[in-house]
């Protein structure tokens, strides 16, 4: 074990009043990432053996799930309750809600199936804000180049360009649905939007509702779904498998109704998969900031049906997860804190990185401090300090105005941010890669669309703060529009699970185990076993 500096010692090393010095031994960005970021090490990837990405790299834990057996059999289909609709949306976060509302507004009959309840998602947890280049000193081009550069030039240029160009209209759409944004001045007309700076951006571009932007967004979207004619909600009905036609196209999905403990078979002209991310896989033992349902289900379902994916070995570790107290470990301290001027300090009381560098760089820098013995240990937890003392001293109201959530969190951690810094450590935050899509969210499987965190290609290998909330609304709306266009199309056949049969043969040929079953649906500590509880 690497040595650490004790919490008490580290507190003593804090220099009262004076600005903390910056360490002089900063590494070049690529060096830092290659040596300390969890994505770049030897344990970070294996080659997939079967499926559309065979031969391509993937995180080993995720590979185990992608190359797994289905949860269901033909027998389960026989007893399932049949339903039919125009559009089936799977997942009730921001992307799913935006897709459902958009498709229904265009006259489609929509079913939205969710695992928990609509809104219980990563979206509702977002704090910092959403990017849109609205400032006079800003432009779509700058937003585009920042996003591309932030993702190490690996993002799809056309998708990025489309998304940043959608951004102003996305904000308008949200306002028309009744979402509030903070203004720079307090006047009814003629005011401009309050804009914050994010790590890795060249202009202030984060629009927000205080520091609980996702809550404001999700409660508005949830109400919009609930009040929109033409949408039926199936809560507590996770998708356990997709349905396919004989030509391999998507025909709907099989849900498991947790209340009735039985299967539901939903045939649909188009399926929008919006199941979000995978933080609850706790890759490489990291804690996570994600909600309870983030178990990579959508990736598993889409991959089995043949969808192509990208960047499955690329994840975002948010620099500032709570490290102490232990029962809050992994919980997020929003980038808003650093954006407002909070500093990161090691056990010697030194700064060691420009806090507003892209997230992967800042996270790697923290991991480096901990690996090189300058981390701080407290009750068996390790991390570095996030120091907001000067910030609060300069603006005593800030915890009631701009950093409300930070104040709440400090109370839960049992510390006073005026007196004491937070102990933080990187937390598994975002799935950079995912299902490859075109500008409408269409995947390589006909009839299957994707939107939101489940999709990939936009953020390259690192996402900027505020670009996820933009992504989910921009692509959620587009996928909803495209799905509604399938309205007039004739529905051929009933749909079945021939793709599962083909998949099982492929598993056997590759000598992969047949007893690993996915999607997971819930983390292991949820103690849920479909086979134990299914009525069948």
């Amino acid at each position: 074990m690497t040595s650490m500096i004790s919490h008490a010692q580290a507190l003593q090393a804090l220099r009262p009043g004076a600005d903390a010095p910056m360490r002089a031994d900063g590494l070049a960005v690529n060096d830092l990432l290659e040596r300390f970021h969890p994505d770049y090490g030897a344990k970070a990837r294996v080659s997939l053996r079967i499926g559309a990405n065979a031969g391509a790299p993937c995180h080993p834990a995720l590979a185990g799930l992608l190359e797994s057996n289905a949860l269901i059999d033909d027998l389960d289909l026989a007893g399932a309750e049949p339903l039919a609709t125009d559009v089936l949306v799977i997942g009730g976060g921001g992307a799913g809600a935006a897709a459902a509302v958009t498709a229904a507004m265009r006259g489609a009959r929509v079913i939205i199936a969710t695992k928990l309840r609509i809104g219980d998602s990563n979206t509702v947890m977002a704090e910092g804000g959403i990017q849109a280049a609205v400032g006079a000193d800003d432009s779509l081009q700058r937003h585009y180049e920042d996003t591309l550069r932030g993702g190490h030039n690996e993002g799809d240029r056309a998708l990025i360009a489309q998304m940043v160009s959608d951004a102003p209209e996305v904000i308008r759409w949200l306002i028309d649905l009744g979402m509030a944004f903070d203004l720079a001045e307090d006047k009814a007309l003629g005011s401009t939007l309050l804009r914050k700076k994010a790590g890795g951006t060249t202009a202030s571009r984060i629009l927000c509702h205080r520091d609980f932007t996702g809550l404001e967004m999700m409660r508005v979207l949830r109400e919009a779904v609930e009040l929109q004619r033409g949408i039926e909600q199936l809560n507590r009905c996770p998708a356990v498998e997709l349905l396919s036609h004989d030509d391999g196209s998507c025909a709907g999905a099989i849900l498991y109704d947790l209340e009735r403990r039985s299967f539901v078979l939903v045939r649909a002209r188009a399926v929008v998969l919006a199941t979000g991310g995978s933080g609850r896989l706790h890759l490489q033992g990291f804690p996570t900031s994600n909600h309870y349902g983030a178990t990579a289900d959508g990736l598993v379902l889409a991959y089995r049906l043949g969808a192509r994916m990208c960047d499955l070995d690329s994840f975002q570790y948010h620099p500032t997860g709570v490290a102490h107290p232990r029962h809050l470990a992994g919980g997020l301290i929003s980038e808003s804190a650093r954006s407002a001027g909070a500093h990161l300090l090691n056990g010697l009381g030194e700064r060691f990185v420009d806090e507003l560098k892209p997230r992967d760089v800042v996270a790697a820098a923290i991991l480096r401090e901990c690996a090189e013995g300058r981390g701080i240990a407290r009750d068996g937890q390790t991390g570095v300090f996030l120091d907001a003392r000067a910030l609060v001293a300069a603006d005593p109201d800030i915890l009631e105005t701009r950093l409300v959530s930070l104040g709440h969190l400090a109370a839960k951690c049992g510390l006073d941010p005026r007196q004491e810094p937070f102990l933080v450590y990187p937390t598994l935050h975002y799935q950079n890669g995912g299902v490859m899509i075109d500008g409408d969210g269409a995947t390589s499987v006909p009839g299957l669309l994707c939107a939101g965190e489940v999709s990939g290609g936009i953020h390259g290998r690192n996402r900027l703060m505020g670009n996820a909330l933009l992504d989910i609304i921009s692509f959620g709306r587009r996928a909803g529009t495209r799905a509604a266009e399938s309205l007039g199309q004739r529905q051929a056949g009933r749909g079945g699970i021939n793709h599962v049969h083909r998949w099982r043969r492929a598993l056997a040929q590759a000598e992969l185990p047949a007893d690993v079953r996915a999607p997971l649906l819930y983390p292991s500590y949820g103690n849920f076993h479909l086979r134990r509880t299914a009525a069948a």
Partner: protein
Amino acid sequence: MSETVHLTIDGREIAADPTVSILQAYAQSGAELTANVGCMGQGVCGSCRCMVRKDGERQVSTLLACETRVEPGMQVSFIDYFLPAHVHHYDLKDLHDSWGMLDQIRAVFPEAEHCRHCSGCDRACPKGLPVQSGVAFSVAGDIAAAAAVFDQCVMCNLCTLACPENIRPNHLGLFVRRSVAALTLRPIDLMRRLREVASGEMSVNVTLPRVETATAAPRLAAPAQDR
């Protein structure tokens, strides 16, 4: 973490570490957890609503299980999302005339005027919001004050469950908040940018930055052979 705390959750006797939340204690006890959970600690999704009676106390309070630490002798039961028989339907697009706002509130939420001031909603709110006053502000037309009351509402629906008049205070609050944004939020910088994008005056050139000038990405380790 020396002593262990004993409590009852949904009829289960549970022994837990004193530092954990009710929700964590429940999951760690081996119970199946597929409902009444979402953000799991942030306290923003409202799904872990529960009734708690503390040891030696007669009063039951409604709290969020992910934000409340276990205490010895607690009795806890989770409460599902409450959906009343009557839900208030409206279409925000009908609200284009802000002069009609008062009438709209009355038309969509007619029960709000019948508030009995029983404070049931105030007691129910796990976020400690002054819900009742939010209802009164809405009825009186103090729109800004009403919107402010519900600013931190997590839509757990406990006030709706508590209200004997089916006012659905949180949905009334959200209606007011949505109306304010949809009718009055007109940021001038956004308007200007929308115009520039619509006219084609501003767009993205995807050939920039040129690939050659872009900096090289960091190198990844080769895929591992074994898993």
